[in-house]
């Protein structure tokens, strides 16, 4: 088994105090290994967004610990946490969140430049990341010159540019039609298969099927998860 890129160990997050306490997440433990995509499902208010915020170091647990490649996020000071977030974690949102005044290549290069990489080197990395999502020829286009599916693929390239190995995707297909959603999932899956790790929050069971495992949250608790794979023969009941 590959080393865990992300690990939740008994993580709880509560807001408020006394009778007003809201337990957004309660004693959740799971891991995401390199080359693995884990889908998170659950009704509204079940804790999915809290889980993503904790996974990305944007929020801190009330108890338990979140580890990224064996580094406990809670043990880092603010500057180190910001650096780790910038260098290791990428986000993909439903509404793409691309900077409209920057080209596709500039959008993808942006986190690398913010990390201190020189402009030319950052652009080289951006072009390579765009090539990995099949959009190298769109490098000079602005977001409003691209389709929703293309913008989301650029967001995936941005999420995994350079040394970033963890992508946190929050309903990445929420604004896309079925066919475009599948194209985006194909790109995400390919990047995961190439060695990244990913968490995919989705309401769509059919899209969660692209993940290696699906975990379900209800009232902040992890209530069930998918089991191991079956062979095609077992799956289809084939005798030969």
């Amino acid at each position, binding site marked *: *088994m*590959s080393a*865990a890129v992300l690990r939740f160990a008994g993580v709880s997050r509560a807001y408020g105090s006394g009778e007003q306490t809201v337990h957004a997440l*309660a*004693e*959740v*433990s*799971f*891991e*995401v*290994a390199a080359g*693995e995509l884990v889908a998170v*499902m659950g*009704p509204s208010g079940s804790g999915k967004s809290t889980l993503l915020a904790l996974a990305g170091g944007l929020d801190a647990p009330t108890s338990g610990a979140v580890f990224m490649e064996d580094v406990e996020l809670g043990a880092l000071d603010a500057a180190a946490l910001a650096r780790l977030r910038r260098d290791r974690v990428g986000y993909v949102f439903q509404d793409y969140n691309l900077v409209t005044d920057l080209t596709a290549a500039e959008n993808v290069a942006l986190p690398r430049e913010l990390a201190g990489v020189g402009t030319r080197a950052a652009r080289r990395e951006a072009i390579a990341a765009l090539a990995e999502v099949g959009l190298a020829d769109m490098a000079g286009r602005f977001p409003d010159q691209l389709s929703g599916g293309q913008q989301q693929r650029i967001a995936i390239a941005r999420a995994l540019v350079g040394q970033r190995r963890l992508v946190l995707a929050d309903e990445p297909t929420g604004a896309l039609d079925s066919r475009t959603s599948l194209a985006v999932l*194909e790109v995400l*899956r390919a990047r995961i298969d190439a060695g990244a790790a990913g968490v995919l929050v989705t309401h*769509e*069971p*059919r899209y*969660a*099927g*692209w*993940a*290696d*495992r*699906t*975990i*379900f949250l*209800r009232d902040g*608790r*992890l*209530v*069930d*998860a*998918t*089991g*191991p*794979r*079956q062979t*095609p023969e077992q*799956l*289809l*009941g*084939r*005798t*030969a």
Partner: protein
Amino acid sequence: MQRNAVRWGLLAVFADGPKYGYQLKSEFDAHTSGSWALNVGQVYTTLDRLARDGYVAPIGSNADGREVFAITDQGREALASWFGTPVTDTDRPRSELAIKLAMAAVAPGVDVAAVVQVQRAESMRQMRDYTDLRRQADESDDVAWLLLVDHLIFTLESEVRWLDHVEATVLRRARPGRGRTPLKTPALADQHCTEVEVSGR
């Protein structure tokens, strides 16, 4: 109903030309990737019935001495009628899952949420595995087979959505002052309602 599906499915295989018995089975298996697991005896029995009903007729033997059948005009007409008639799935309300959850909702001592969770985890496991199969397919694969896998994926999707609905309905009803309080099955609750430890693959 399943017998009917096989009968019409086998007749449809004749649409592109005459076949001998084993060839009929091979082509049906190829289109369904063997998922129906038809045995040779079943194919020959169905072939006899199709001939008895006048839907196919023997047209002689091939070089290997195997009896070859072809679809008749009556068979083409019946096949066209089958394609043009909607399927009324009379087995649907009788599915074991529907009955299991309906009964779980009214039987004392059953934690319906736990039953839902066990089933949903299994449904999503199947969803992932069928999605793997679909992802590995390419455009050169048998289109009938691809559509059958898609059917399984879409069916599982609706099943998971229905399971979510069942869970939400039961939990809503379980709130104090909102109807009867469901009882718990301790064994099920202990096994599945607690936090699930999940490790990497």
